[in-house]
C-alpha cells in the first residue's frame, strides 16, 4: 500500500558507482536528477538543471560541497541548491541517504506530482 505522503526511498545504485568528486544521473519521468558524490563521500541529489540556462549540473566540477555549472560557471551549493556569490537562483534538492553503500532517493515529490498531473 503506497500512500502518496509517505516517504518512498528508492535504491538508485551504489555510492561507489559514482566517481569521487563526480556525479551521475538518475532519469525520472519528471526530468533528470543528478546524484553528486563529494570527496568526503557525502551524496546529494539535485535536479540536473542549472537555474541560469538549464545547464546539466551533473557535468560540472564538484568541489567541497558545491558544483560549478559546465555552461557558464555558476557555482551551486549541493546542500541547499542555492546559487553562490553574485548569482541568484535555486535548484530543487531531493532527500537522499546512504545505507550500507546503497543510495536511497526519496521519490515522494516525483510520484506525488505525477499523481497530480
Amino acid at each position, binding site marked *: 500500500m503506497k500512500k502518496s505522503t509517505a516517504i518512498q526511498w528508492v535504491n538508485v545504485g551504489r555510492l561507489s558507482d559514482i566517481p*569521487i568528486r*563526480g556525479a*551521475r544521473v*538518475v532519469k525520472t*519521468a*519528471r526530468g533528470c536528477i543528478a546524484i553528486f558524490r563529494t570527496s568526503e563521500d557525502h551524496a546529494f541529489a539535485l535536479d540536473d538543471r542549472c537555474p541560469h540556462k538549464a545547464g*546539466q549540473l551533473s557535468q560540472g566540477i564538484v*568541489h567541497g560541497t558545491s558544483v560549478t555549472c559546465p555552461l557558464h560557471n555558476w557555482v551551486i551549493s549541493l546542500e541547499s541548491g542555492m546559487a553562490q556569490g553574485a548569482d541568484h537562483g535555486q535548484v530543487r534538492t531531493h532527500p537522499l541517504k546512504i545505507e550500507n553503500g546503497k543510495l536511497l532517493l526519496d521519490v515522494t515529490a516525483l510520484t506525488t506530482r505525477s499523481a497530480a498531473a
Partner: protein
Amino acid sequence: MKKKLVVIGNGMAPGRALEKLFEIAPDTYEVTIFNAEPRVNYDRIMLSPVLSGEKSFDEIVIHGDGWYVKHNVTLYKGATVTAIDRDAKTITSARGITVPYDKLIIATGSLPIIIPVPGHTLAGVLSYRDLDDVQAMLLASKSRGNAVVIGGGLLGLEAAVGLKEQGMDVTVLHLMPTLMERQLDTTAGLLLQKAIEARGIRVITKANTKAILGEKRVEAVLLEDGTRLQADMVVMAVGIKPNAGIAKTAGIDVARGIKVDAGMRTSDANVFAIGECAEVNGQTYGLVAPLYEMANILAQQLAGDASAQFKPSALATKLKVTGLNLFSAGDFSDGKDREEIVLRDAARGIYKRLVLQDNKLIGAVFYGDTADGAWFFDLIKRGADIASLRETLIFGPNYAGGAPLDPTAAVAALPDEAEICGCNGVCKSTIIGKIGTLGLTTLDDVRAHTKASASCGSCTGLVEQLLKVTLGDSYNPAAVLPMCACTTLGHDDVRRLIVAKSLKTIPEMMQALEWKTSCGCAKCRPALNYYMIATWPGDYVDDGQSRFINERVHANIQKDGTYSVVPRMWGGMTTSKELRAIADVVDKFKIPSVKVTGGQRVDMLGVKKEDLPAVWADLNKAGMISGAAYAKGLRTVKTCVGTDWCRFGTQDSTGLGIKLEKFLWGSWTPAKVKMAVSGCPRNCSEATCKDVGVICVDSGYDIHFAGAAGLDIHGTDVLGHVETEAEAIEAIAALVQLYREQGRYLERIYKWAKRVGHDTVRKAIMDDHERRRALYDRFVISQKFAQIDPWAERVQGKDAHEFGMLADLTKEAAE
C-alpha cells in the same frame, strides 16, 4: 549472603566495571570470572608496543593475580563458557564446570573478521586480537621473511609497523583508496601513507585480495589484478564482529551485538552485557572509551542505582605508532550546514581540520601535531559554543592572538639548494647570500646581481618572498594575484614550488602549499591538474574530476546537453573513406547537424552523450582519432595546398602542416594552441594570426608566433628563419614546450609572450641551441605519455560511468 555475580570474558570492559563496583559497593557480590584466554586482564590496546618490542607483557597487565586474591574473585583462566542456562541460572564451561549466578555479565568482546578467500586456513595466516596472536607473529617474524598485512586500518598499520620493527619485509594491502579512511579524511590518509612508506613499508591501496597461496603454509598472496606478493606470514586485520554467539544460543536478543538497554541490561533482566559484544541503540563500539563508560554504568546499576544510563558521546582515535602523530575525533565528514577550518603548516608537516556546525565543533582531524587533541575533543564532547573562539580556534588553546599565518612560510622552509630561478639556475642560498653581503633591498637589485627572475620572470613572486624572509617587514613585495580564493600564491609560485618541492599529486601539493580548502575549487583544480601533467609526464595520473566536462569526455558540451564530435583531419586533408565514415556515422546515430569548421575539419553537432563511445568506435575504425576540439592542447594545423598544386607554392606547406600535427597532437598546454602553415607570403592559411604560424619562402621557413584572432586580434611576431623542415619542427616543439613550462593556465601564447617578453622567447629558441634542444627533448618525453587517442581508450571502456545513467526511474515514478 552475598549475591553471585558471574562474568564471561576478562577483557578491558569487565575489568573496569569490577574496579568501579568494588569501589562503590564493596562486599555486595561474590565474583567469578571465566576467561577463554589463559591469563589475567591486560591492556589489549598496548599489544602493538609488545609486538614492536617496546614493551613486555608484564608492563601491560592491568590486574595482576594479587588483585583477584585481594577482591576474593575466582578467576578461571583458559576456560571458555559454552552454555548459559537461563532457567537454572547457571553457566557451564568447556571443561564441564557449572556455576550458578544471580547476575550474569557477558563481556566476550569481538572476533576478528577473516575474509574467506581461498587459502585463509593455511598455517601462517594470523589475526590480531590477543597475546597469542602477538606471540605467533613474534615467532614467525624470526624468519625475517615477508609479511603481508591485509587491512590498512588502525590495527593493520600497528601490526605492520611492529613487524617491520621485528625485521620483516612488510606490505600492507588496503581495499580503499586511502588508509584508515574511517578515521581520517583523504589528506590525512595520504600523509599517513607517506609516513608509513618512509619507514620502508610498502603500501598498496585499492588492493583486493583474491587468494592466499601455499601448499601447507602461506607462500604468497594473490591480488585480483594479478599481482603476486611473496609472504611467509599473512596478518588479517580487516575488522571485528561482536562475539555474541553464546548469548544468541541462550535465547537472548541479539542483533549485530547483544542488545542491551541504556542500563546495560539484555532482554533477560538478570543478564547484562558490556564491551564490544554489546549493542546499545543499534550501535556497537570498538574503542575503549565508550566501553569504559558502559563499565561505569553497569557498576552503578549493579550497585543499585537504576538511574545510571549510557549516553554515547563522540569518539576519538589515535594511532599508537611512535613518531606518528595522528588524531581524529567526532564527525569530520563534510555535509549539510557544515563549515570547515583547515590549517596546513607544510614546514612542520602539520595538517589540521576542524568541522563546525551551528557554532559548535563537531569533528577534528589532526596530523603531525596532536598535542591539543584533548582540548579539541573536549570542545566536541561538551558541544561548546565556539562562536567567540572561531577566529583563532584552529591554533589551539595557547593561542594568544597576534599575527595571522605567514604566507612566506613555504619559501622559508625550502632547503638552501632549492632552485628558485630555473632560467638562470639560481638557488635559494645564492639569493639570500647576495641580499646579505651586498645589502640588496629591491627586486631590481636582486635581478641585477644574481640574474634571478631576470629572464622569464615567473619566479618573481618567490624572489620577492625571499627578500621578505631575509629583510622582514622592511620589504613589501608587490601584490601577487592569487590563483583563486583557495590560496595566497600566484600561478608562477605554485608552478615553481611544485618543482622545487617535488610535489607529485594534487592532495600532496595542497598540503605542502597550505591550501585553504580541503579539495580546491573549479578554478584551481583544472590548473593544478595541468601543472602536474606538464611537470611530471608519465608519473602523474590525470585527475578526470579536475577537468572541465569537455576534456573529461573528449567532446564539446552544447547548450542542450548534447555534444559535438570533431575528428582530426591532419593538416585539413581528408579522404573519401573518411568522409564516407562520417556520413555513415551521421546517418546511423541520426546526428542533426554537420558543419565545416573554421579550422578546416568537420563538426558533428547534437550527439547524445550515451552515443559518444559508439560514434567514436566507428570513426576509429575508419582511422580517425579525436580532433581535441575541446582541449587546452593542440587543436588544428591549418594548411594551404602549397607546392602540391599551387602555382605560387615554395615549399610543401600541406606536408609540413601534417608533420607538425602528427608530432604535436595530444600534448596538453596551458590554453589551446592553433597553428597554420602557408606555402607563400600570400598566406592563404592565415598563419600570421595563429599561436604559431609558418610562412614558407624560397630559402626555407619563416616561423611566426603569438598571434591572436579571437577575443583579441594581433598579427604574429617573427620568431626566426630556418632552412629545413626538421629545424622548423624542432623550433616549434621547443617553443611549445617553453610555453608549457611557463604559461599560466588559460593564458594563450600571445599573452604569455607579452608577459615574459617576445625577445626572451626568441633568444631561448633561436639563439641558445642547447636550450632549444633540451626543451625539444623534454617535449618528446612528454609526448610519449600524451599521444594516446582518448576516444579509443573510451571505446575500450575507460570512464564508462560517464556515458551511462545511474538509474532509470521513469517507470517507477509513473506508477
